[in-house]
């Protein structure tokens, strides 16, 4: 028996997949061959070490966050329940409401509201966005550079805060950053933690807009908005 066959027998042994006949073959080999015994012991020890790693407990609050997210999804109509077709009158109402919101957004697009904590734009997607709260001001611009989407973030902060860029991971990928800021990328979300003061960070993505932007501090949402740019390359 060659070494490959022996290792296959050992692997089947570790996974509880040995037939009675194979078990007898392996037992005989282990009895006769010290090299086979050594190999078997090493794989067995590797297996034990892997099994000795205990499962980690999820962080507190994860389940609550998931369920809160699903409840939110239900309220916004993106629910798990089967959706039957909307009646015509409801569809018409949705279209009219959409047009009204779009019109209102167009009017308000550059309006700055002084003296409030939350001034992030929730209006129609655009290439530029300003988010401003007490202690943090972010100016963001999105442009297309060939295949890349380039998101430039200029921050002026006196408090620790996070800028979160959300993308659709199915269509868009985070490629890299330029600038001095801590950054994590996970599950369609890039989180930038700029140092306080005036900073500039550029994030590159490949794929398609829009990109949702959030400004957060101490877990609190200070402002959010959407950035978009033509997806034509």
């Amino acid at each position: 028996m060659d070494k490959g066959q022996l290792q296959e027998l050992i692997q089947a042994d570790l996974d509880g997949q040995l037939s009675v006949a194979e078990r007898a073959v392996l037992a005989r080999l282990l009895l006769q061959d010290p090299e086979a015994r050594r190999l078997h012991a090493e794989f067995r020890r590797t297996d034990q070490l892997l099994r000795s790693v205990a499962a980690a407990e999820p962080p507190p609050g994860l389940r609550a966050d998931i369920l809160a997210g699903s409840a939110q999804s239900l309220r916004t109509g993106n629910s798990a329940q089967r959706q039957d077709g909307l009646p015509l009158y409801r569809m018409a109402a949705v279209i009219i409401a959409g047009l009204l919101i779009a019109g209102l957004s167009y009017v308000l697009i550059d309006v700055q509201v002084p003296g409030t904590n939350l001034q992030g734009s929730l209006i129609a997607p655009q290439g530029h966005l300003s988010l401003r709260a007490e202690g943090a001001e972010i100016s963001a611009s999105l442009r297309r550079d060939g295949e890349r989407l380039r998101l430039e973030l200029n921050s002026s902060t006196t408090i620790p805060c996070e800028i979160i860029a959300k993308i659709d991971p199915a269509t868009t990928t985070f490629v890299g950053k330029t600038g001095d800021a801590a950054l994590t990328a996970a599950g369609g979300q890039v989180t930038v933690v700029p140092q306080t003061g005036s900073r500039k960070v550029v994030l590159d993505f490949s794929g398609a807009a829009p990109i949702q932007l959030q400004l957060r501090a101490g877990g609190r949402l200070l402002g959010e908005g959407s950035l978009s740019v033509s997806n034509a390359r």
Partner: protein
Amino acid sequence: MIENVDAARVRDCLAGDPQAFAALVGQYEKPVYNVALRMLRNPEDARDIAQSVFMKAYQNLANYDPQYKFYSWIYRMAINESLNILRVRDRNAGPVDERLPADDAGPSELLADDQQRDVVLEAVERLKPEHRAVIVLRYFVDRNYEDIGEILGIDAKTVKSRLYTARQLLKEQLGTRGLL
């Protein structure tokens, strides 16, 4: 059977019972988090992925095909999201040699349990994603060849082959670190 329980919960959820989804989250929150954690070795990324997986599952329950196991569906999402992050990391950091021992490698007969665990997890992290995925599913959520194949979309023969290679590489690495 757990698959039947899951299928019933999915049906209840689609019928509008929010408790049914809470039960699915309760059942799979920990393994989904562990899949992502062991793939990425980063608790924050793992948390984000767990949250994202359950949100996607919730929003797409109507598309869930009950001929597959519910956990296969969500573990697959967790693995795929982890692989997306690893691809971004690889682009930024360059490839890792699965066989290269860590810089501080050396005999370590007296390692404490938590240090020993760190060495094992570091060795897993050095594996290529396709090898890491089979190890994570086999050891950290206890799936068999058939389940792993269903989750990764590969046949059982390929599962065995990848598992074999991954174990071989881990054995070499752990041997280098004096754990065998």
